[in-house]
């Protein structure tokens, strides 16, 4: 309290506000996200005429905030590296994210879960194969020939956690790991933003399709963001399968996939 009150001098008024905001990080984050959501809803309803969901605009605004925060601070945690917005790191961190994702399963009928389950497992297997195969092929097409680099970039096309984990395990160079991480983040962003746009075309309107989709995409943040903006009722089914993807990816990347890539590139 005193630090906030005594923050006089040049820019003292803002410093006082920033101190209070920083000292109450989680509360600040809730208020900021509430404001962003309200503005996003307003933009979606008025400027965009209701053609785009408010939550899509809010997620885009969040990404813009992350870009701005990273540019101002030079850090790697987006807006959370701005001291008075650091609470966003707690609100958007893995702990509360997972608590909220689990809570979405509340009210799900067990019958629908067991019905969606087997198709979801097929989606999960196909998703990992596609991510590694297409990711590694793209890296090869872009001129990478070192098996470790090709595997690491392919792993990044799975999720932004699988990429760095695989790269670190195989001893990839820092710039290859950076490309791999970037591929994962871009995937999460593309899935978040594109899902509501393609949902109707790919038949993403029932629990089974959501379970298959979650397994195929695998990126937790992309899947939960994309489904939330499409139909919140589908979130638990997609999240359920997506949650196995990163763990399995981290298992397969440095072992089986690296072995196959090394054999192919001789």
């Amino acid at each position, binding site marked *: 309290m005193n630090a906030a009150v005594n923050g006089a001098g040049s820019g003292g008024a803002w410093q006082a506000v920033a101190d209070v905001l920083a000292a109450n990080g989680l509360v600040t984050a809730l208020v900021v996200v509430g404001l962003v959501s309200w503005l996003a809803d307003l933009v979606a309803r008025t400027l965009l005429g209701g053609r785009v969901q408010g939550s899509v605009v809010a997620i885009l605004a969040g990404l813009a905030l992350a870009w701005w925060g990273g540019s101002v601070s030079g850090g790697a945690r987006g807006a959370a590296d701005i001291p008075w917005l650091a609470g966003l790191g707690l609100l958007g961190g893995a702990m509360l994210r997972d608590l909220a994702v689990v809570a979405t399963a509340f009210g799900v009928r067990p019958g629908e879960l067991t019905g969606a389950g087997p198709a979801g497992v097929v989606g999960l297997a196909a998703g990992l194969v596609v991510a590694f195969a297409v990711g590694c092929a793209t890296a090869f097409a872009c001129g990478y020939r070192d098996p470790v680099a090709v595997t690491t970039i392919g792993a990044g096309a799975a999720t932004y956690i699988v990429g760095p984990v695989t790269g670190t395990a195989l001893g990839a160079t820092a710039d290859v790991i950076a490309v791999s991480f970037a591929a994962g983040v871009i995937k999460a962003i593309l899935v978040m933003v594109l899902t509501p746009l393609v949902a109707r075309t790919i038949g993403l309107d029932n629990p089974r399709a959501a379970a298959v989709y979650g397994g195929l995409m695998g990126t937790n943040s992309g899947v939960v963001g994309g489904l*939330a903006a499409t139909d919140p009722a589908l979130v638990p089914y997609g999240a359920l399968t997506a949650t196995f993807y990163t763990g399995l990816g981290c298992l397969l990347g440095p072992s089986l996939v690296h072995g196959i890539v090394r054999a192919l590139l001789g």
Partner: protein
Amino acid sequence: MLIYGTAILGACLLAGRLVGAWLARLVGVDGDVGGVGIAMLLLVAVTGLLRRFGRLDGQTSAGIGYWGGIYIPIVVALAATLDVRAALRGGWVAFAAAAAVVAVSFALVPVIVQIGGADPRRGGTA
């Protein structure tokens, strides 16, 4: 009471995480294999049992439901903490790999849904 619901939810997440960590150690990777998914199944099972025995009142449900409802704002906060600049710096190799995988994966959704035959529930429930 509200806290009962939130405590049940939290206990399910912790238990799921624990099982996920065991599974991860079993297969020899760091972290957590499917912990959140296991927690979701646990929550469905536990709340189903409580409901059957009439122990799940409105307040308890609200203690779980709040977190489900706050979930989109949490995703907005998550988006605000991604390393968007690093993603842009990754250049076109990163973009090409991500875009190709996402395109193929989207295209496979209807294919894999079809493999198991038509969903009997489709169109039946809203």
